[in-house]
């Protein structure tokens, strides 16, 4: 699956594993891929920042989404603290779906390589799930994010 990924895209996936470990998640979810993109330094990260989405903002939006979803069934809870798992988190279904969607986005656009833009689009184009819900609740427009990332990808097509 990763043979068409650019070096930058592979770094995003690797960093998503680090993000998951840092937030004590036993698995890498789609939101960790997007968090990894937001804390990168390339044109896609800049496009997201220009649309008011940065690492801290997304992390806060995700926490708020968890709080809100638990509240919907009457549950409030502090995040339990525990010693971290030792094994590197593995890709969960949501992350695999996002990467498959990234692949389809690249094919549809006629791009030969998969870059960080496609990974970001793969998480943002999900019809349901944590990422769309978190952004919606934070009043961050997904269509605007998608437009900006597509523009960034048009200006600097993924290579290497």
């Amino acid at each position, binding site marked *: 699956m990763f043979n068409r990924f650019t070096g930058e895209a592979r770094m995003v996936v690797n960093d998503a594993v680090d993000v998951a470990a840092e937030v*004590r*998640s*036993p698995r890498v979810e789609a939101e960790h891929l997007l968090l990894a993109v937001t804390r990168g330094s390339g044109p896609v990260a800049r496009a997201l920042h220009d649309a008011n989405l940065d690492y801290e903002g997304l992390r806060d939006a995700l926490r708020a*989404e*968890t709080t809100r*979803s*638990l509240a*919907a*069934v*009457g*549950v409030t*809870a502090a*995040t*339990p*603290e*525990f*010693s*971290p*798992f*030792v*094994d590197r988190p593995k890709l969960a279904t949501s992350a695999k779906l996002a990467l498959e969607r990234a692949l389809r986005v690249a094919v549809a656009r006629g791009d030969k390589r998969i870059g960080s833009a496609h990974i970001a689009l793969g998480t943002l184009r999900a019809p*349901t799930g*944590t990422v769309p*819900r978190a952004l919606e609740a934070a009043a961050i427009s997904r269509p605007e994010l998608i437009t900006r990332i597509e523009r960034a990808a048009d200006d600097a097509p993924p290579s290497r």
Partner: protein
Amino acid sequence: MTIDLTEPESPADGLAAVLALRRLAEQLEAAEVERALRDGWSWPEVAEALGVTRQAVHKKHAKRLIAAGVELRRR
């Protein structure tokens, strides 16, 4: 008629609640297994309290607790 305030408004909210509860349960398990073992519980006691085999709970948590320097009783 009574209104149940803890009924999710939509399937999207309900399914998101399932996901959030599942993750919370995992985090709570990690925290409470650790607390029990630090308090001197044995693996079989922790396993029985959770309703799983001691192999399952050991496989899931032993490595990280050893790495964290928790003194573990013999299984």
